[in-house]
């Protein structure tokens, strides 16, 4: 009982710290959005990768970076309406 409570609290603390973490009730939309955002962040963080992608897509590195940034806004579209 107390244990469960503590796990719950720990999970909440974890989620406050790391937005990308999930739990048993995470929806597909939340998860995929996180994946997309994490991916974009990762591309930008590794400059050789960014460089490679820019060459492949035939655009400037900065443009690719900008696209990555913009892609992070609602990467998977708006959240689907919750059905009650």
């Amino acid at each position, binding site marked *: 009982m107390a244990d469960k409570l503590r796990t719950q609290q720990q999970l909440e603390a974890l989620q406050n710290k790391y937005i*990308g*973490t999930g739990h048993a009730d*995470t929806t597909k939309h939340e998860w995929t959005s996180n994946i997309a955002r994490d991916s974009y962040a990762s591309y930008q963080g590794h400059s050789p990768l960014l460089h*490679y992608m820019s*060459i492949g897509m035939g655009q400037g590195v900065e443009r690719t970076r900008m696209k990555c940034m913009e892609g992070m806004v609602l990467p998977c579209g708006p959240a689907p309406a919750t059905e009650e």
Partner: protein
Amino acid sequence: MSDADFERVRKAQNERNISGKKTSGGASGQRTNNTKASLTEAFDTELYDGGGGSGADKFAGFNTSIPADVDDGDEDEVMRDADEEDGRLVGQYTATAAQIGEWASGDAGEEGDMMQSKEKQAQIANRETDYQKRRFRRNVEGEADGKTYRETMQEREIEREEERVRRLVEEQEKARIAAGDDEGEEMEGLVEHKASLKDGSADADVKFEDENGANGHAEAKPRARKRRWDLSTETPATNGEAHTNGHATNGEVVAKKSRWDATPTVDSAAAAAAAKRRSKWDVAAAAGGATPAPGPGATPVQSIMGFGTDISNRNAALSDEELDEMLPSEGYKILEAPPGYEPLRAPARRIAPSATPVNTNNGGFMMQEPVDPRSMGKQLPSDIPGVGDLQFFKAEDMNYFGKLVDGVDENELSVEELKQRKIMRLLLKVKNGTPPMRKTALRQLTDNARHFGAGPLFDQILPLLMEKSLEDQERHLLVKVIDRVLYKLDDLVRPYVHKILVVIEPLLIDQDYYARVEGREIISNLAKAAGLAHMISTMRPDIDHVDEYVRNTTARAFAVVASALGIPTLLPFLKAVCKSKKSWQARHTGVKIIQQIPILMGCAVLPHLKGLVDCIAENLNDEQAKVRTVTSLALAALAEASNPFGIESFDDILNPLWTGARKQRGKGLAGFLKAVGYIIPLMDEEYSNYYTGQIMEILLREFQSPDEEMKKVVLKVVSQCAGTSGVTAQYLKDKVLNDFFKSFWVRRMALDKRNYKQVVETTVDLGNKVGVGEIVERIVNNLKDESEAYRKMTVETIEKVISAMGAADINERLEERLVDGILHAFQEQSVEDIVMLNGFGTVVNALGTRCKPYLPQVVSTILWRLNNKSATVRQQAADLVTRIAIVMKQCGEDNLMGKLSTVLYEYLGEEYPEVLGSILGAMRSIVTVVGISSMQPPIKDLLPRLTPILRNRHEKVQENTIDLVGRIADRGPESVNAREWMRICFELLDMLKAHKKGIRRAANNTFGFIAKAIGPQDVLATLLNNLRVQERQSRVCTAVAIGIVAETCAPFTVLPALMNEYRVPELNVQNGVLKSLSFLFEYIGEMAKDYVYAVTPLIEDALIDRDQVHRQTAAAVVKHIALGVVGLGCEDAMLHLLNLLYPNIFETSPHVIDRVIEAIDAVRLAVGTGAVMNYVWAGLFHPARKVRTPYWRLYNDAYVQSADAMVPYYPPIEEERLRRVELMVMI
């Protein structure tokens, strides 16, 4: 020392050994000395004897009394003990328990009454000082809820007026008596001589005394204390007065009663009701009368039933069994009770046996009566309906919880009553229940707090807290209830704030540190819940309450409020209070609040320092002496808290403070000096120099003061002044030292412990400035003084000075006198004291090679003392060897050391474990400095003697032997043969059971050394056998030892045998093997890569075992292997193990699941994130929540630890918007 001497010692020692054997080692050969504390007896009886010791010692380490300050309000607070707030759990004493008790309670033997039962001693009320007991005079019930602020204020005004009139009448009465108009000759001894010389300030003092109502005993102080011997004349005089004017025991006349007449004043019982100003000694007897606004039931007479005098037992109802036995069984019939008859249940009202007729506590002889079994809880229910089995149920509880057993049909009760009963039940569970009951009840109370409402809750909790028989545990629990409930109720508590304060404020002056902390917490939560405005309006009327106790506690509570809500919010109010024109009490309390704030908050006052100082600046020149004193104390507290900053805030008060110090005398001066002492260290150099010069003449004058309080202050201020950089050594030498040593280095100072401490401290502080030589030169002659306490004080001072500054400053002549003196002091001690030992050790170590000429003499002293009859002397001598071994080596006295160690070796048969431990310690220190090879006697003789000692169960002995043996095993294992080492191995196994971690660790390391010396096979065999024992701790330690052996002797020497052992079909052994593997792989780290494939089958087996613990331990092994082989090409094996590990993620037992998750994490590091994540994707969106939950846990762990590495491995999702096209780019 000559060889002849040496021989003589040896001979004496042999004789002693032989005679010791004859008396079969009994203690009869030892001198029994009851006046000394036994070294072999643990003082901590609570811990070691399971409560066998007397209950009085239970609080030995605590502050069992508040330092004198609370006793007389602020008067004695001049030297508030600095450690009041430090929360130290263990007393830092080396004194007998009796001495500790004496210092803790102040009046030895009065409080820890042997005749008092255990429960009585556990009760809080029985430990309280009379001042603290005044809390019972406050009154919770009497307070109407709906009283407005105005009404309260008016009521207080009336109380004050009553008090004033009463004082006036008393004064006139006294004047009449003094004038001798009716009882002239009878009152001869007590005539008050009015001072004929009157100046302004004295006048003010008199006036202040007139007005000062409640603390009668406080102003009785300055008068010379009555000697006990003239009591016989005093008592009849008092009585006579009582008969004639009906104004008996009040006032100045008996205010300072000696405690010998503490028995309730029976003869003046009638008069006591009229007496308002009571001495603190008769509080218990006359508790009913004088509370300012007493309610009838508010101050129940405390039941002072003594042991065996409770006559109510005699009148108790007989049980059925007893009646059966007494009455004839034949020819009689037991009738049924008539219809409608209802047996009486236990009385709802408290029957307090009157205190007077049975005078119990006067300490006279009492016949011990056998305790009637019927009186032991028979009348009390052990089981309350709807509550269940309680831990205990006291008679007093019946008053509060009696309703629960009245057997009323609950269906007929109204909702309100039901609610009340519900609360009652929960409270009873919390207070008297078992821990699990308590927990659930507390939770229910908390959760339903708003539903129950503040009224019903507090109406029941608060009276419980006022109960006289309350014990610490109960109070703690009830306070906890309040705390929780407060949190939930929030602003609903407002109507109850005052009631709660009345109950909680006394906690702020409790002797127990934790009670004080609890009290602060509650009040601060209360302040946050009720809000500042409400707190102020509630507490305002108490600020100028007639009762000093109320004002004192209110001030403390206000300080807590300030720390909770912030000083700035409270500052305007404080400013107004401190400038109050209406009453000096208000100003006094206001200043006191400001004094308490820095004590509570420490350096957090710094931002508001200016404001706080400005608040009280004007009170430094108050017309009331008391206010001036408390102001100076508040300034001292502020300066102390803000040290070393904030001098600019004090600028305005410097002048009044210094000029004020010149005008004051007595208590007031002490306070001013204290403030000066704390402010000087804040100043920069030139100012501190100037201001010290200004104050020094007063200090020098007060050196001669006979007042203890003043002495303490003066000493403190001197040490503070000496500590500042502006005061030069030359100045101190010229102006201070002579007077200081003349007034304070006298034998009398050594007798009182507090003075002793203060003088030593101050001298050391002076020494830090003027140098070692100067100080030692002045006191070195005292080392040969005839008073032992004085010698001790000298040694302690020298020790502190020299350890702080070294001995370079000591010239040759002085050095000689010093060593000579300290040797003399050491030899002459009648009670062996750690102070002497430390002093000797420090001096010798500080002198270093300069000691060489004295060493022979020192050693011969040691040798003689080693041969002493008294165990403590021998122990001390051995301890001294430990201290000076290094210096002896430096001086090249190897020869002497050889002799010493030979003698010590002879003493290894010592019977007292404490002494044996010290002797072993001395041997160890000698071995350490001379080295194994040149040790005398040779190691091969020494070690066999140590083997049996390893069996000794005493911790000190164990620790020292294991250390010595380990050292030998490490440095010179070849000097002993393998068989001896094996024997030692066996003995070491027992050490693994030791309670002390240090011993277990040393034993484990020693296994490693021995294994290295004689090869691992035999040691390993021993250890593996030890895996079969029952004790878990022993097995764990064995496992650790195997790990250590494997580490020191390479794993391949150990693993085969270890893995073979796994085939033993016994759970403990297999587990032990797994555990050893776990430690082994933890220790060997990367070396593991060579053994992975060898152990994989074993782990495989363990991971698919039915037993949870097996799998758990195996998971731990996997974890350590995996972490060891990261990047070393063992991925295939790790993946294999992961496959076996993975099904275990559905385990629910916390330990198992934690180990499994850790192992998976470790494998993820070894084989890469991608591979392991492939396992995880499968379950993240599984239809069953039970499956999803652990999978998400794995996902989260992976995400936290290596989110970036996961990016390339996320599963491809074939939806338009979710495709990660960037990753598809291919050039």
